[in-house]
Each structure stands twice: as C-alpha cells, then as structure tokens.
C-alpha cells in the first residue's frame, strides 16, 4: 500500500526529460519532490508561470509570486511569467506534455469528476476543466476509495463531470491502472503488499486483468 508520497513517487517515474508538466493541488504537488535524477522538467503553474521553483526561504516570501494553490514559491533561472489567457492558451494548444491532478471519481471510459458535490461543496473548477479538455496526457492521483469506503473507480461518474474521456492513467494507494480507449481500467502494477483480490474489491468499474500483475518497484 502506498502513502501519499508513495503515489507521488510512483507518478514521478512517468516524467521524461524536457517535459512541461502541470501539477494539481494535493498529491500531484508532491510529485515535484521526486523528479528522477538526470530528468529536467519545467513546471507550469496556471496562474501564469513556467519554471516554478521551490518554496522560498523564510523571510524571502514574495506576495507577488505564488502558484496556482496560492502558495508562495520562487522562480528559477529560465523561468517565464505571463498572463492567465496566455497560460491557458498554451494549455489549450496542447503545449503542456503532462497534467497530473486529483479526482473524486473516474469512470471506466476516462471521465473525471473533481470539482463539485451538489449541495455540499461549491468551490468551483478553477483551471481543471481547461486542463482536462486539452492535455495530451492526464494522470490522476487519488485514493482508490472515498472516506465512506466506496470505490472512486466507477462504471459511470455520479458527480458532476469535469471532463469527458480524458484520463489516461490512474495511480492510487493500491495500484497503477491504464484507461483503455475502448473502456475499462487495465491493471498494470500492484502497490507493494497489495493483492489483485484487494484491488478487485475496491474497484467498481470494469477492471481488466491480463496475466500476472507485477508488484511495483520504487527506488
């Protein structure tokens, strides 16, 4: 079973040298801590920055320099700042190689719901709908089941959708799955110590298991 950092570490293996990457709030943000050695990626923050650096040292916080989660950050040599229309222009034009974000539900055809619980939560979608509508590659980082123990991997989403047929891969505390173009969650890897049976039990949508499913190796 993976903790949040384990999920982030697992997703970091997908990063390739030269990638432009947008990280959502929560577990996705942690991916930045596990970028493999020798791989250079540029982080895009949709409020208008390419080349997001680490948090500033105490006393060096700049209120004019924040990320999409409203956290104080820094720039790096080679960073670029721009306005919000340009920021979503580059997203819409497919320039961002990989988008990693959280979800409340994912369906077996790759639909994602992550912005609204009717009657309960009305925070808004922020940039999530723009990102999922245009990103070339979307990986979802989330818990396999919700707080009530119900599967978040469903035949069909029950919550209002953020985007349709867009999720390519999902990493949870239990496993890594690929969303097949014809539909279905194809099991790729098991988290350390997790059995196929446990994954089956926690997945309500169509789970596709072909052959032996390897246990992932994280350095």
């Amino acid at each position: 079973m993976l903790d949040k950092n384990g999920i982030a570490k697992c997703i970091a293996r997908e990063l390739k040298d030269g990638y432009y990457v947008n990280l959502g709030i929560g577990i996705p943000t942690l991916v930045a801590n596990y970028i493999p050695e020798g791989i250079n990626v540029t982080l895009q923050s949709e409020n208008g920055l390419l080349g997001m650096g680490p948090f500033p040292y105490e006393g060096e916080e700049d209120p004019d320099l924040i990320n999409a989660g409203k956290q104080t950050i820094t720039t790096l040599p080679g960073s670029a700042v721009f306005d919000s229309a340009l920021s979503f222009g580059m997203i819409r034009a497919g320039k961002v190689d990989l988008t990693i974000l959280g979800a409340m539900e994912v369906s077996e055809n790759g639909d994602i719901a992550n912005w609204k619980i009717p009657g309960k939560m009305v925070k808004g979608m922020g940039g999530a709908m723009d990102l999922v509508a245009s990103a070339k590659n979307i990986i979802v980082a989330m818990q396999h089941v919700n707080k009530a123990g119900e599967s978040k991997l469903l035949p069909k989403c029950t919550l209002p959708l953020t985007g349709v047929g867009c999720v390519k891969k999902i990493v949870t505390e239990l496993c890594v799955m690929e969303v097949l173009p014809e539909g279905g969650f194809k099991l790729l890897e098991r988290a350390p110590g997790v059995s196929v049976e446990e994954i089956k039990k926690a997945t309500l949508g169509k789970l596709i298991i072909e052959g032996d499913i390897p246990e992932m190796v994280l350095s």
Partner: protein
Amino acid sequence: MNKIIANADEAVRDVQDNQTLMVGGFGLCGIPENSISALVKKGVKGLTCISNNAGVDDFGLGLLLQHKQIKKMISSYVGENAEFERQLLSGELEVDLIPQGTLATRCMAAGYGMPAIFTPAGVGTEVAIGKEVRNFNGKDYLLEYAFEADFAFVKAWKGDAHGNLIFRSTSRNFNPLMAMGGKITIAEVEHLVPVGELDPDQIHTPGIYVHRIFQGSNYEKRIEQRTVRPRV
C-alpha cells in the same frame, strides 16, 4: 495626455448600483486593494463582479461580500471564502462558476474586439448546458461570449500618465486581460512614474486601454498560503 487622478475615491466616483465590474487578481495576488476599499466606502450595491476568486472573508472582494454589495459573482474558484459559501447556499448571492481559462479568454476577447471564442473546456459537463457546440477537426468546442463590463479595476506595478502598465511577477495574472476588457478601465499602481521612464519594449498593457490611473497607497499584499523551506 494625462489620465492621472488623485485617488481611489475619485476613481470609483461614477460607479453605479447594478453595474458589472471586472476585478483583477488571482487569489489575493495582484488585487486592486485601493479600489476595492473605495467601492466598500462608496456603498454601491447590486454589483456583478467578474473575478477569478472572491477574496477571503475579510480581504479583497470578501469585503464587498461582507457588506452585501455583490449580487452576482462570475468566478472560477471561490473556495477560500466562507461568507461567500454561506451567501451562495442561502440564495442571497448568484454565482456563475466558469473554467479559469474560459474566464481569462472571455476578458481577452473583449479587449481584442472579438464577440466570442470557442473552447473545449467544459464540453460534456454542466458548463456546456444551453451553449452552442461546434466541431472543428473532430473535436467539440463551446461557444463562449466576450464579457461586457462597465468598469475594470486592475492593479499594476508601474504605470505612467498615458496609462501604460507593467505588472510584476505572477501578480500579472488576469490584470492585463481585464485592463483590455473594461469599457472604463481604472488602474492603480505601486509606482506612478514620469512619462518616458517606462521602456516601450517592456510595457504589458498599452495606455490606450486605460482611462484612469492613480498612485495606490498602503498596500497590504496579503499572502494566502505562506509556504517556506528550511535553510540548510
């Protein structure tokens, strides 16, 4: 050419009840603090505000919400404001939540003289309800209209009497787009500099879009999430 006005009170002098305002900033970063305070003081009501966020309970647009001056918010994310959520759930406040890129581009379209844009954001979701869908090269897009705003309030780092503006770091965000999009655009700046001091190559918003400019004061520049790393 002199668009300089004395202060925020003069800037908001002709804002009327029930008008539509664009308000720059992302979170509390780059918000027109002085103009918001002046709007609170003026007491105009029934406002429709186009702004990515709604401030926090006691700062930014949260101040206008606290005084029940806003009738409708058009935003992409309003998660940091409990008073907002309360007014929304109780039905006192109308809210149009729209994708962030759509919000930015609808402002931009207004400034570019384009009546509408096509975007894939929201296709197949409740955002698409009632909207025209057009297919280009096998992909669906929503028709979204340019915003119409009576006033745009923006905050810049530097500006001059011509209304030329330069923004600083990520406080740029929606500000140049809203500066272009308002029928009357009011810029408050941290540094009002003599004409000729700004390098023409570095100007983000050409003065033609800006109608009034003033030297802001007492900037609080509040930080929402102060995150730091330890010194090694």
